[in-house]
């Protein structure tokens, strides 16, 4: 790698696999930074997603964490370290202007929903949001057209959704093509369904407050109903066989290879699918989560996004911040948008898209941005944003729920028990 001779390395742990557009993006800006920076260079190191979740914890505890590390904001992989003083407080940098976006403090250039996810309850900012990711239902336009299935649309209802699944099953009988791709061996992919059902039925406000408020509960009807809906999908045969034993990467492979019509997954799917199949991702599109007649919330999203933070072991935090400022500069965010089809984490007014660039936006990106602009709240993933005791209960329950080894009532009860434990340990009750 050019530009590394005689300089001190800043180790950066990332989760992007070979062939993904995100990795291209990272490498472009790492090279830029390394070429121009006299004192240090960024050394990206790949860590597998699930292994990273454990490794960051153990390396933080062992005292040899990377200088810059990936995280998703929220408690599990950012705030719990910040609380122990192991993450550099970025507030001073954030209050100043970024050299790439003059005219406003750096922190104001980010989408507020994202900023909230990297700001701890002590008011300090510990992470730099890289992008906006959210989850919803993605579908393959070409497959829908080929098999002449009713197209999904943003106002579709739960019943319409189910009808489409039945239609697909009918028209693909005997073939190895399935309505929805799912790989729930670890639990967080099933969690997307559950979270959205709860979000729709209980409302964003409730979900947010319930984590802290002793008067609210997790074992209400909305939560039980959410579990029932998940199992309804399983019983309908909406998913590819073997989903209990497959990983999210396996489901992505099926979706990318045109073996599934839809997948409830995050906006990163475009970049991820490209590694498996160069053709199909072109036809990906996104749609809002199906609506319910008794829903409390219609527009909000489950999401968050990758962020980078600087560990206390970094010897050159200023340089690390300089890299991060470069990495979220408008030019870089544009590459994120056009090359990776991922939404920027900075506000669109700072993005500065020209008219031609606006026209170049893919259909997928346009629809994503539409959904994002309508959302007033972004609910952080439960396996990132919540404390470990609740996370453990959530993931385990999701595996059991979709594997039909438990009931929706038992799941709701388990979540509430975990929440009680958390409230007790946090001294709230």
């Amino acid at each position, binding site marked *: 790698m050019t530009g590394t001779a005689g300089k001190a390395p800043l180790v950066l742990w990332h989760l992007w*696999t*070979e062939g993904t557009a995100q990795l291209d993006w990272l490498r472009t800006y790492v090279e830029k930074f390394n070429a121009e920076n006299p004192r240090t260079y960024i050394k990206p*190191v*790949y860590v*597998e*997603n*699930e*292994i990273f979740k454990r*490794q960051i914890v*153990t*390396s933080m*505890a*062992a*005292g*040899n964490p990377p200088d810059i590390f990936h995280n998703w904001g929220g408690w599990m992989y950012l705030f719990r370290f910040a609380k122990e003083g192991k993450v550099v407080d970025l507030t001073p940098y954030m209050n100043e202007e970024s050299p790439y976006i003059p005219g406003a403090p750096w922190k104001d250039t980010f989408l507020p929903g994202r900023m909230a996810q990297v700001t701890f309850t002590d008011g300090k900012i510990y992470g730099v949001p890289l992008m906006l990711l959210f989850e919803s239902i993605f579908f393959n336009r070409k497959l829908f057209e080929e098999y002449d299935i009713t197209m999904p649309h943003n106002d579709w209802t739960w019943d319409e959704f189910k009808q489409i699944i039945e239609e697909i099953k009918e028209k693909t009988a005997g073939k190895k093509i399935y309505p929805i791709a799912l790989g729930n061996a670890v639990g967080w992919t099933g969690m997307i369904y559950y979270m959205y059902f709860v979000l729709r039925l209980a409302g964003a406000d409730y979900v947010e407050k319930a984590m802290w408020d002793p008067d609210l509960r997790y074992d209400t009807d909305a939560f039980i109903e959410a579990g029932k809906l998940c199992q309804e999908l399983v019983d309908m045969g909406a998913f590819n066989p073997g989903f209990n034993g497959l*990983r999210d*990467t*396996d489901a*992505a*492979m099926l979706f990318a*290879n045109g073996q599934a019509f839809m997948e409830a997954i995050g906006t990163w799917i475009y970049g991820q699918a490209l590694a*498996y199949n160069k053709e199909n991702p072109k036809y990906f599109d996104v749609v809002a989560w199906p609506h319910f007649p008794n829903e409390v919330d219609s527009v909000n999203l489950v999401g968050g996004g990758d962020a980078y933070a600087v560990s206390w072991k970094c010897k050159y935090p200023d340089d690390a911040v300089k890299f991060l400022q470069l990495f979220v500069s408008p030019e870089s965010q544009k590459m994120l948008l056009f090359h990776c089809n991922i939404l920027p984490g900075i506000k669109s007014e700072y993005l500065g898209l020209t008219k031609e660039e606006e026209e170049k936006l893919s259909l997928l990106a346009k629809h994503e941005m539409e959904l994002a602009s309508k959302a007033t709240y972004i609910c952080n993933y439960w396996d990132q944003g919540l404390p470990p005791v609740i996370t453990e209960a959530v993931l385990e329950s999701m595996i059991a729920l979709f594997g039909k080894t438990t009931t929706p009532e038992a799941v709701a009860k388990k979540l509430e028990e975990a929440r009680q434990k958390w409230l007790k340990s946090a001294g709230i009750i």
Partner: protein
Amino acid sequence: MVKARLVLVYLVLISFAIVFIFPVYWAIVSSLKESGEIFTNPWGLPSKPLLDNYVDAWILGGFSRAYLNSGVLTISTVVAIVILSSMVAYPLSRFNFRGRDKLFYFLVSGYMIPPVVVLIPLYFMLKSMNLIDSLFGIFLAYVGLNLPIPIFIMRSYMSSIPREIDESAYIDGASPWYIFWKIILPLSRPAVAAVAIWTGLITWQDFLYALTILLSPENFTVPRALLNFYGVYGNMWAYIAAGFIFAILPMEIFYLVFQRHFVRGLTAGAIKG
């Protein structure tokens, strides 16, 4: 009648052989296919053998580094264990001292402590010594872990070497250390081979300790690299198949060359004595 029985015997032997070998055949065949073809044509021969898969898999999986790490680690562990276990077995087999049998019993019964049990506190111990994510740290763990059976094997064998040999050497003025190094140890070659093979195989294959103690890719051993490989190229299944071949090749070759010693070595502890 005899012929029919012979046919039956062959049938049984061959059926089992197929069961044990087919995955290897399948891995070789799959590794030469394009990833998609593995699913469309799982059992047949590749339509167009892709040797490139091997090259790509090797580079992308970082196997060069992993092999180096595994090799160095295994060899050093084997050497350390051979030396330490034979050193302990020497007095245990040739001198009478109080508590000798208790000591032997003590050392060998450690085999019954599950490695995962040792790992939990050991991890925190290594952490406090700053040896996590270091090959030296895992080396220490491997040596401590793998002593019981080698001690058993060495002592069993050394017990069968007649004491007169020691005594005549002693009369000639040799020190116990000399007797050990120059006489007893060379005479124990079969046991040394057994210990080397046993320890080598276990160390080479270890996954649990590598998973826990080694964190950075440049420190990975082959088993650990394979897991990383799956994460990165999880769905480039042809690469996974190629990775499998890489993983088994060294031991296969080693086995084919040292076959007789292998069998003898691994069963040395089992044969009464």
